[in-house]
C-alpha cells in the first residue's frame, strides 16, 4: 500500500499542504508547551527582573532558587502533599473495589434484578439531587470535616463502572462456567478469573481515578474545614487563586518578599505538577486506551 502511494504523483498543492501541516503542528506544539516552559523559567527568575521584563520570556530573567527554597520550606506544601498521596492511594483502592463489585454484579446474566439496578445506576448519570442536597446528606452522615468525605461519596464513577462492566461482559462465558462447574463461588470467579482477565481495563481505571483524586479540589473545599486535612490542590488554590501567603502575613511584608511571592506562585505550580509531568510520558498510552474503551457503547 505504501508503495502504491509513492507511485502516485504528488501535486504541488498537496506538497504545499503537507509542508503547511508540518509547520502548523510544530506551531501548535509550541503553544501547548510554552505556558509550561514560561512557568519553569519564571520560577527560577529573579523576582525583580521578572516583573520588569516585558513580552515573551525565552530564558530566565536573572537566576535564583529563592522561590523553590521558600516553597519547600512551606509546611503547608508538605502537609498538602502527604494528604493528597493519602487521598490518591486510599481513594483509588476504594474506587476500584466498589467499581469492580458493581461491574461484576451488573455484567452477570440471567438475574431478575440486574436490569432494574442497572437502570437505577445509569439514571444517576443524567439526574442528581444537586449540590445542596448532596452536601446535606454528606453532612448528615457526620462526614463533614472528615477525610472520609473525600473517599466515600465519590466511590463509583458511573461512567468508569460502565467501561468496567463492558470489559467483564466481554469475558467468554466458558471461562466462568468451567470454574462454576468445579464448584467455585462467585467471589472466587471474580478474584481468580474476572479480575486477572480484565486487568488491562482495571489499570486504565486506576489511572483515571488516581489522576481524578490528585487533581480534585472542589469536594475538599466544601467538605473540609481543618487545614491539616487539606489536599495539595486546596493549598494551591489559596496560593494561586486567593493569593494567600501565610509567611507574608506574619512578617510585615517587605518589598522583596512581595516580589518573591510572584515567583513563588510559579515555583508552587511546578512543585505541584512535577509528579504528573514526570509520569505522564510513561502512562500516556494507557490513558489513550481508556478513551478508546470508553467510546465503545456499554
Amino acid at each position: 500500500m505504501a508503495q502504491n502511494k509513492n507511485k502516485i504523483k504528488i501535486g504541488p498543492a498537496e506538497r504545499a499542504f503537507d509542508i503547511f501541516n508540518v509547520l502548523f503542528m510544530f506551531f501548535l506544539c509550541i503553544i501547548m508547551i510554552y505556558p509550561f516552559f514560561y512557568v519553569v523559567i519564571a520560577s527560577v527568575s529573579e523576582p525583580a527582573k521578572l516583573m520588569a521584563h516585558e513580552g515573551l520570556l525565552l530564558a530566565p530573567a536573572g537566576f535564583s532558587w529563592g522561590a523553590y527554597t521558600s516553597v519547600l520550606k512551606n509546611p503547608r506544601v508538605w502537609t498538602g502533599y502527604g494528604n493528597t498521596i493519602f487521598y490518591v492511594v486510599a481513594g483509588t483502592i476504594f474506587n476500584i473495589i466498589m467499581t469492580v463489585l458493581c461491574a461484576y454484579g451488573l455484567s452477570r446474566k440471567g438475574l431478575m434484578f440486574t436490569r432494574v439496578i442497572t437502570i437505577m445506576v445509569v439514571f444517576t448519570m443524567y439526574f442528581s439531587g444537586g449540590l445542596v442536597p448532596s452536601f446535606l446528606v454528606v453532612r448528615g452522615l457526620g462526614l463533614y470535616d472528615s477525610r472520609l468525605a473525600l473517599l466515600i461519596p465519590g466511590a463509583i464513577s458511573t461512567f468508569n463502572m460502565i467501561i468496567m462492566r463492558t470489559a467483564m461482559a466481554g469475558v467468554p462465558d466458558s471461562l466462568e462456567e468451567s470454574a462454576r462447574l468445579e464448584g467455585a463461588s462467585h467471589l472466587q470467579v471474580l478474584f481468580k478469573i474476572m479480575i486477572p482477565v480484565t486487568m488491562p481495563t482495571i489499570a486504565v481505571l486506576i489511572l483515571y481515578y488516581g489522576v481524578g483524586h490528585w487533581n480534585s479540589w472542589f469536594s475538599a473545599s466544601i467538605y473540609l474545614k481543618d487545614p491539616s486535612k487539606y489536599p495539595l490542590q486546596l493549598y494551591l488554590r489559596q496560593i494561586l487563586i486567593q493569593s494567600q501567603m501565610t509567611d507574608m502575613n506574619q512578617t510585615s511584608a517587605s518589598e522583596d518578599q512581595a516580589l518573591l511571592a510572584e515567583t513563588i506562585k510559579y515555583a508552587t505550580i511546578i512543585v505541584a505538577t512535577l509528579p504528573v509531568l514526570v509520569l505522564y510520558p510513561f502512562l500516556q498510552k494507557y490513558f489513550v486506551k481508556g478513551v478508546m474503551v470508553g467510546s465503545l457503547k456499554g
Partner: protein
Amino acid sequence: MAKNGGNSGASPQGSQGLQVRKNSFGARAIRDFKKNYEIYLILLPVVAFYLIFSYAPMGGIAIAFQDWRPGRAMFGAGARWVGLKHFKDFFSSYYFMRVLRNTVTISVSSLIFGFPAPIILALMLNELKSKIYARGVQTIVYLPHFISMVVLCGMIKLFVRDTGVITQVLSIFGFQPQNMLLNPNLFVPIYVVSNIWSGVGWGSIIYLAALTSVDQQLYEAAEIDGAGKWKQTIHITLPCIVPTIIIQFIMRTGQILSVGQEKIILLYNETIYDTADVISSFVYRKGLLENDWSYSTAVGLFNSVINFALVSVVNKISSTVSETSLW
C-alpha cells in the same frame, strides 16, 4: 416454596394451583435470590452506595419547596412547605436572566469554537506523513488535559494580569494592557480559549480512533479515479467519521445548560459576575456561601430538570434520525 411445588406434583389439582404461584413474581424472585444470593450480596454495598449518595439527595430536593434551615424537619409535621415560592423568586429576580444568558453564551461559544477544533486537529494529524512526528505531536497536545483545574486557572490568572505574559504579547498588537479578568467583555473568550487549549488534544483521540477504522481501499480506489487529497478528505474521510461527530455533538447539545462551576468559581470575581456567573456557580454561592439552602436547591432543581429534558429530547431526535442513541 419451589421444593413444595415439586413434592405435591402427584395431585393434579394441587399442582395446577401451585403452578400459578410458582410463576408468580414473588416466587420467581425468591428462587432468583436463592440461586444468585452471592451476586446480590456483591451488589449490596453498591446499591447502598447509590441509594445513600445519589437517591437520598434526590429526596432532599424536597427542601426546594420549603423554607428549610438546619435543625428544621424536612418531612412530616415540622416541615414548612412554601410551594413554588423559591422558583417564583428566582424567575422574577434579576439573576435569572443573567445566569441563564451567561450559561447559554458560554456553552454556545464553547460549542461553536471548541467543537470543531479537535475534529480539525484529528484530520490534520491523520495527514501527517511521518508517523513518528505525529506521535510526538500527540504526546504534547494531550498533556494540558492532565493539568489540574486549580493549576490551569492559576496559570490563566498569572498570564492575563496587566503584567502577565499573554497581556503583554497582545499589547504588541495594540491591546490596552489591563487585568483581563477584571474586564467583563473578556471572560467568555478567556474561558473558551483556555478550554480549547487544555482540551483540544484529548478531544481529538476519539476522532483519531474513528479515522484508523477507515477502509484504506477506499483511498486507493479514489486515487485510481483521480481524486485529489482534498476530494478524498471530503468524500471519504469525513463521511466515515460523521457518526462519531454526531454522537459527540448530541452529547454536547444535551449539556448546553450545564456549565460546571469549578472553573467558573476559580476564575471569576465580583467585577465580572455580569458575564461570568452561570447557573451552577450561582447555586454554589447561594447555597454553600450564603446558606440560602432552599433557594439554591430550587435553582439547582430547575437546572437539573432542564438538563434532563434536553438530553432526553436530543437523544430521541438522534435515535430517530441516525439510529445512534445514548440509551
